[in-house]
């Protein structure tokens, strides 16, 4: 599950990571109140206003602005709240901004030069343990840093037997060239984000940039966190942070029916039992000249109820011109799945797009006969090859 920046920062703060002072605002009024409060506690005269959406590159799309007065906070908040923010990571339509954070300006003058650092904690899948990745080149896309100056990306591997050690945190701070207070604060920062990572069952924490202020504070100026969905059962507080506004309404609807659905932009819907076969079916649609409109795993058993809900969800997408149902009946028999499809079809009523049903496995032939005899306008297939050819044919 992805979290917003403000949510990630609230978790980080709980684990002792320093973050800029700031407040959340849903309206221009709240933004001004937050700015006034910030001015009161920090004396800052500049404010940063940041759109809160689940996508990176917000600055590039105009979702991050600096205000030099409370008046400007009011203007900029009005401008950003309600805008459709388009970034390199959103669709062309962008994402509606429903909330912003107003933060103190951290670029204030002081005895030393400020610096931007990159740091993330993530799983190294190959080795099966966590790593801390960091670079003195913060504030820019880490993939660009990896291409231009790979020697400036460092990693620290965390041995699961002993966990993060002090010498490792020191090494991070030294490699980043920090001294004195900045060095000490960085050691603390590294421990803080690692504790936050473990303590909240995150699969990713990315802080870009980690900001060294002119008075040597180390702050998480931005924060991205991804939480392991499988671990949400032991973090009810984090589970509540799920923001349905950030998700596709059809995906939210699908979750309600226990369906694993991901919306895509193509013209052929598909419904499959099993995640691997579902991805493979999407690939087949592409090879057959179509474009997959979705990923949809109805689960191993492919029960009639789930098949019906699956149809209903796919049909809500107006771009869908055909549907491919691909079920490998193992322990669940194909004739039963076929009956489920026929019933679902009749329950839904008017279906005006071609449907191709491929049933393979136990009682596949009986399943095909059932579909063929039903009188419905459904094309049936047994092998994957036949199904692929039918997709090409109906798209002509």
């Amino acid at each position, binding site marked *: 599950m992805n979290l917003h920046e403000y949510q990630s920062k609230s978790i980080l703060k709980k684990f002792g990571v320093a973050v800029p002072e700031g407040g959340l605002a849903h309206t221009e009024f709240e933004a001004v109140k937050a700015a006034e409060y910030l001015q009161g506690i920090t004396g800052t005269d500049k404010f940063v206003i940041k759109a809160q959406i689940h996508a990176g590159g917000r600055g590039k799309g105009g979702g991050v602005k600096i205000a030099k007065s409370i008046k400007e906070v009011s203007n900029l908040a009005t401008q950003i709240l309600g805008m459709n923010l388009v970034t390199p990571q959103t669709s062309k339509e962008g994402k509606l901004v429903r909330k912003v954070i107003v933060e103190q300006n951290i670029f204030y003058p002081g005895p030393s030069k400020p610096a931007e650092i990159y740091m993330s904690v993530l799983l190294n899948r190959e080795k099966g343990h966590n790593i801390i990745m960091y670079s003195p080149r913060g504030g820019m896309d880490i993939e660009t840093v990896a291409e231009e100056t790979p020697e400036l990306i460092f990693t620290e591997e965390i041995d*699961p037997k002993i966990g993060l050690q002090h010498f490792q945190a020191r090494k991070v701070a030294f490699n980043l060239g920090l001294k004195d207070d900045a060095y000490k604060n960085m050691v603390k920062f590294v421990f803080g984000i690692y504790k936050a990572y473990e303590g909240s069952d995150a699969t990713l924490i990315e802080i870009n940039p980690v900001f060294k202020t002119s008075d040597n504070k180390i702050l998480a100026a931005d924060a991205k966190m991804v939480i392991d969905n499988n671990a949400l059962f032991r973090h009810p507080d984090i589970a509540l942070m799920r923001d349905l506004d950030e998700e596709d309404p059809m995906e939210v609807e699908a979750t309600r029916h226990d369906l694993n659905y991901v919306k895509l932009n193509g013209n052929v819907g598909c419904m499959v039992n099993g995640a691997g076969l579902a991805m493979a079916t999407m690939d087949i649609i592409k090879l057959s000249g179509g474009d997959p409109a979705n990923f949809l795993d109805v689960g191993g058993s492919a029960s009639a109820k789930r098949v019906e809900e699956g149809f209903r969800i796919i049909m809500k997408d107006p771009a869908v011109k055909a549907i491919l149902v691909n079920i*490998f009946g193992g322990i669940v028999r194909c004739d039963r799945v076929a009956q489920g499809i026929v019933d679902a079809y009749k329950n839904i009523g008017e279906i005006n797009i071609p449907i191709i049903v491929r049933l393979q496995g136990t009682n596949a032939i009986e399943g095909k006969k059932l579909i063929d005899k039903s009188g419905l306008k459904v094309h049936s297939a047994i092998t994957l090859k036949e199904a692929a050819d039918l997709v090409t044919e109906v798209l002509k």
Partner: protein
Amino acid sequence: MSILVNKDSIVIVQGITGQEGSFHTSQMIEYGTNIAGGVTPGKGGMMHLGKPVFNTVSEAIKATGANVSIIFVPPPLAVDAILEAADAGIGTIVCITEGIPVKDMIPVKEYLSCRGVRMIGPNCPGIITPPDTKIGIMPGFIHKPGSIGIVSRSGTLSYEAVDQITKVGLGQTTMIGVGGDPIPGTTIVDAVKLFMEDPDTLGIIMIGEIGGNMETDAGYWIKEHGTKPVVSFIAGATAPKGRTMGHAGAIVGGKSDTAEAKKEILRQCGVMVVDSPADLGVAMVEALKK
């Protein structure tokens, strides 16, 4: 011959009295798997599906001589079940459970490797050596004894491969589903190595997907040490970046773990890669002719 499991496998089921455990245990018994009993803490002493139930894995081993355990325990308790099996001396653990937090798997993997215990899964369909033993949830009847080793990250997609291999008349030595989680107990390269060493396996089918580097690790190993033809399909060429596609581990993070990147590397390593999963069977027949 086969890999990891065979007619000498004596199997206990952890979570035998649960709904999933009961259903699949009866399916395994029907297939002919030597199910010696099960473990459900607190239900020791009863009989279930005609098999004895024990309170602990050690009791079960002492009474039955079991050497393989299959786990159908819900996610919050599954890690404990795995560790109990390893501690009691089970050599091969098959964990079917889907939804174990990644954080919990990190120390488990470490512990198992220190103790030399093999785990298959989690979040996998299991392993089958036809016609001797089925330790998993796959439909047994589609498998036929033969000469092809199959390793897969996906359940239903492996059934597809098995079905094609059976229909082209080749059959399988063993089919192993390594599972769809980010940290699997057994990786694809582990399975490929075992198949290369198995004298009865003449060819290998390797089914991967987006996310991680398991397939390319296997590719590099095959390039150096491979002695048998390998046919591969990588699912998810059309999957968008950054979205989890059902399996917790099926997510494109960077350029190197897309289906395209994996296929390209596998081809360079001498693996025959098919773009359509419909071609797995015929491609294997072709590969064996060469």
